[in-house]
């Protein structure tokens, strides 16, 4: 199986504090990799280094065999890498449909064609399909800021998939989402994985969610990988129980 993402010996320090300390892993095509670990273990910093939001202190990131270390987030996105953030990041002043169109428009043509082309950048039908897929059709014309937290979370995730990414990095997609919405979110993510063959990396604290969704799990503690394997293996790992899951 080919590796979509290869992370080698990635490091990130803030002054004397080492947030990510030589993390290496691969993500294979079509895989859903979970990353878990206690607060402050470096999960989000790892994402930010992979995605160009932070410049790593050391190490390399390869996408489809191509070095992308330190590449700008917008360039990475156009290479097919999308993400969500730990905190909600929708655009409250735009409607739900416009949020989705925005999430796909920069993949359509050049700057000039986006200026003189259609207002929806030819994405209305895709946005409607995405609204339908995430059961948000009835909210398409509402301002994103007027939605409930759970609905905004769904929108946030939907935006990450609007451009049909090869690889999506989701930072705590289940955070603050109620149980009903959680099941819906998990089902949607699974469906995208199967139907579009998308590859995911998911940071999550909700163990039921991550164990049910992911094929493989990476456990971080103090910026290092302390365990890696399938959910059943990780759940039994003594170091993981000690550092994170508890007895």
């Amino acid at each position, binding site marked *: 199986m080919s590796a979509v993402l290869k992370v080698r010996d990635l490091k990130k320090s803030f002054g004397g504090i080492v947030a990510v300390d030589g993390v290496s892993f691969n993500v294979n095509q079509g895989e859903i990799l979970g990353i878990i670990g206690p607060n402050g273990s470096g999960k989000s910093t790892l994402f930010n280094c992979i995605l160009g*939001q932070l410049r790593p202190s050391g190490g390399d990131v390869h996408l489809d065999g191509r070095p992308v270390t330190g590449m700008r987030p917008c360039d990475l996105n156009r290479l097919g890498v999308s993400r969500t953030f730990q905190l909600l*990041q929708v655009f409250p002043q735009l409607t739900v449909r416009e949020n989705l169109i925005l999430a796909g428009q920069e993949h359509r043509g050049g700057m000039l064609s986006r200026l003189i082309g259609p207002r929806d950048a030819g994405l209305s039908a895709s946005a409607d399909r995405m609204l339908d897929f995430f059961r948000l059709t009835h909210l398409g014309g509402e301002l994103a800021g007027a939605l409930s937290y759970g609905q905004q979370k769904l929108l946030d995730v939907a935006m990450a998939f609007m451009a049909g990414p090869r690889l999506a990095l989701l930072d705590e997609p289940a955070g603050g989402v109620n149980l009903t919405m959680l099941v819906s979110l998990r089902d949607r993510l699974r469906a995208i994985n199967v139907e579009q063959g998308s590859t995911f990396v998911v940071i999550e604290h909700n163990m039921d969610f991550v164990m049910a969704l992911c094929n493989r799990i990476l456990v971080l503690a103090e910026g290092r990988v302390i365990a890696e394997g399938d959910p059943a293996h990780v759940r039994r790992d003594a170091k993981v129980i000690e550092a994170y899951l508890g007895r």
Partner: protein
Amino acid sequence: MTRRRTVAVGIALGVSSSFLLVAPFLFKPYGIFILSTWAVMTVAAIGLNLTLGYAGQVSLAQAAFVGIGAYITAFLTTNGWSFWPICALAGVACFVIGWGLGYPALRLQHHYLAFVTLAFNTLVYLVFRNEEWLTGGIYGISNVPRPSLAGWSMNGAHAFYYFCLAVLALVASAIWWLIRSPWGRAFVALRENPIRAQSLGVDTRRYTLMAFALGAGLGGIAGALYAPLVQFIDPTPFALGLSLNLLLMVVVGGSGYFFGPFLGAIIAVLLPEWLRFAQGYYLMGYAVLVILLMVFCPTGLLGLADRLLTSTAKAAPVAAPEVS
């Protein structure tokens, strides 16, 4: 846009357009001059609204671009050049300079950026004042000719007013198109959350520079209109005071609202004239009005109107469904 809002905007637009078309017949030449100034300043404020209101980049340099446009026009038209290519040149020159000024915005935000643009405005003002060989220094450039189009002279107050109004309509239409295009959506994303925008593929660097450049370009076009309007330019009107006044127009009218600069320019250009009956107190009254507005409605007049329309829509009783 809700139906109620569409109707309100339609009525306001119809009434104000009709008024602007017949206005020259209602006023004396000074009144027409003030209305022409309003149109010119609205063009400059539309540019600043694009940079600040839509893209969220603070700029205190708009007066510098109006000045650059005005000086280019005054210098070249008094040396025999035709107005039309000069007007385009003024816009393009300011676009290029604005693009350059946008680079600090890639590293700085908020008041830091405000200070950089303020320094730029001061620098340009000093060039206008001190480089006498080029700009005429404090003596300025006089006898700036007004343009003519296909033999139709715009020397008269009426003709030049309609010309300013036509340019304003053209600029407003172009910006209306722009903010409704994917660019407008990207500008809003840049203003609201640049980090998320980047993660969705929005090249925030390019859009930031473009927001500065387009805003500056419109400042240049406003300057190209201003020079033949007043027919004499010197450095004084292009000092920081005008940048602050243009900022006031955008903020008071409603930053990020399409019609904000139109309304803001009424407050900043026309209101002081209407308050002249108060003689020495008019500036104080004007200042108090602005303070009250900013305290009670920081989103500007259109923000206030928006809030009122929303609250009346919510308060309106819901009609009982018909039972057949």
